[in-house]
Structures are given as structure tokens and as C-alpha cells.
């Protein structure tokens, strides 16, 4: 039996209509896809912009706060600058005027490590009262000898009186009080 060719029963008009329908569906899906992509991109970019806005506001706040802090410190800054000027002036004075330190330098040179001076005062012009404690009586004797040695304290001291010595039973150290006599014209009284 001979094979008969297929007979196309669908009318051409209907076939065209289906094609149009398919094209329309494709466009619709493509449009929706583009919409979704644009929506996501827009939201991301907009979110980034909001973040930048927030960062800017935050930076402005920080700047304002820092400016306020600095404004609050302006009075202290002026004080500090005045003090700095005073300090520089004092440095100059101390460099040119060492009378204050002569006595202390000599006493420091004369004081052995095992002797601690706890009090230091002028009794009257030419007399210096010193009290403190020493590791032992020998240390105290060394202190007096060194204080009167011409290479150490003897440059300004010319005599010493030991006013009192006692042994501290708690610490085991010798407590002492003494008077050193200053050489004349070693220290000059400031007017």
C-alpha cells in the first residue's frame, strides 16, 4: 500500500496566530527578567547611596564633636602656652643661676647610698638642719666625714654638730638629726 503524504490540517491563520502568541510570551518573559534585574540593581545602588549618606552624616557628627572638644580646650591651651613660656623663662634663669642647686648638689655628693635624708631645712643663715636615717652608725660617721671632705661637702660645709642619734628598733636603722655649718660667702642671699 503506497504511503500517503501527511496532510496539514491546521489552517495557516491559526499557525500564524500561535507564532505571534509565542513571540508575545517571549517578550513578556524577557520584559519581566529585565524588570527584575533592574529592580535588584536599583535597590543595591540605592542602598549603597543610603550607606554613603549615613557615612557622611556620621563623619559630620565626628567633625562637629571634635571641634567642640577643641573649643572646650582653648582656655586650657592658652594656660598651657603661658606656662610653657614661663617654663622656658625658668629654664633660662636656672641655667644662669645655680645658687639654689649648690647646696643640694654638695649634699647629694656627700650622702652615701645607705644614708637617707628625710628632712632638710635652714635654721638660720649659715646653718642647715638635716635629719634622716642611716643603715648603721658607721654609715652615719661616713656621711659626716664625706660631708666635711674638701672634695665633697667640704666645699661649702666647715663643721657639723650631731644633735641626736637613736636606733629605730623596728627598722634597725640609726635615726639622726644634725646641723651643718656653712662656710661664709658660699651661698649668697638673694635680694
Amino acid at each position, binding site marked *: 500500500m503506497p504511503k500517503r503524504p501527511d496532510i496539514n490540517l491546521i489552517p495557516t491563520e491559526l499557525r500564524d496566530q500561535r507564532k505571534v502568541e509565542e513571540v508575545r510570551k517571549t517578550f*513578556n518573559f524577557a520584559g519581566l527578567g529585565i524588570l527584575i534585574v533592574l529592580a535588584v540593581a536599583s535597590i543595591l545602588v540605592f542602598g549603597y*547611596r543610603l550607606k554613603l549618606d549615613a557615612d*557622611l552624616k556620621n563623619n559630620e557628627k565626628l*567633625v562637629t564633636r571634635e571641634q567642640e572638644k*577643641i573649643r572646650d580646650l582653648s582656655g586650657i591651651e592658652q*594656660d598651657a602656652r603661658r*606656662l610653657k613660656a614661663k*617654663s622656658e623663662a625658668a629654664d633660662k634663669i636656672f641655667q644662669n643661676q645655680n645658687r*639654689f642647686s649648690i647646696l643640694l648638689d654638695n649634699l647629694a655628693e656627700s650622702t652615701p647610698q645607705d644614708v637617707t635624708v628625710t628632712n632638710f631645712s635652714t635654721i638660720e643663715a649659715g646653718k642647715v638642719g638635716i635629719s634622716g636615717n642611716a643603715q648603721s652608725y658607721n654609715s652615719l660617721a661616713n656621711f659626716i666625714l664625706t660631708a666635711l671632705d674638701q672634695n665633697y661637702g667640704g666645699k661649702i660645709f666647715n663643721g657639723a654638730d650631731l644633735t641626736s642619734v637613736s636606733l629605730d628598733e623596728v627598722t634597725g636603722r640609726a635615726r639622726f638629726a644634725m646641723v651643718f655649718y656653712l662656710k661664709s660667702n658660699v651661698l649668697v642671699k638673694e635680694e
Partner: protein
Amino acid sequence: MKTNRLTNALVENLYLAVSVVGSLFFVLVLLLPSFSLIPSLRSEIQVKADEFKDLKIKSSRLNSLIANQNTLKSLFQPPLIFTEY
């Protein structure tokens, strides 16, 4: 008759119409303005950050000055001994 045909076309292509309108909305209202603002915002942030950095440096200098002030104050305590010498 024409209006009817247009309405029919819109209804038939509703998804496409919504997509076009929505896309235009996103592009014109969100995307383009944001894109145009971002560079200026970034430069403003940079300017403020630099300003903040300078202020921080100034503030830390002031703080160290104040810390030194306390040291200076202690230097200017009245001498306790040998004021007359």
C-alpha cells in the same frame, strides 16, 4: 474602535507593559539619581574624613600639651626650702 484595540493590546501584553513601566520607574527614580549622586557623596566623605583627621591630630597635640601642663604646674610649686638663698 481604536481605543478598544489599544485596550485589547495592553491587556494581551500586560506583563510587557508592567515590565516597561516598572523598569522606567526603577531607572528614572532610583538608579540614575543614585548613580549621579554617588561620586559627589564619596568626595564629600573624603573631605570630611580628612578634616576629621586634621582635627584629631590637633586634639592629640592639645592633650599632650595639657599633660605637659601638669608637669609644668608641679615645676612651679613654691620652693619649700632655701627660698632666701
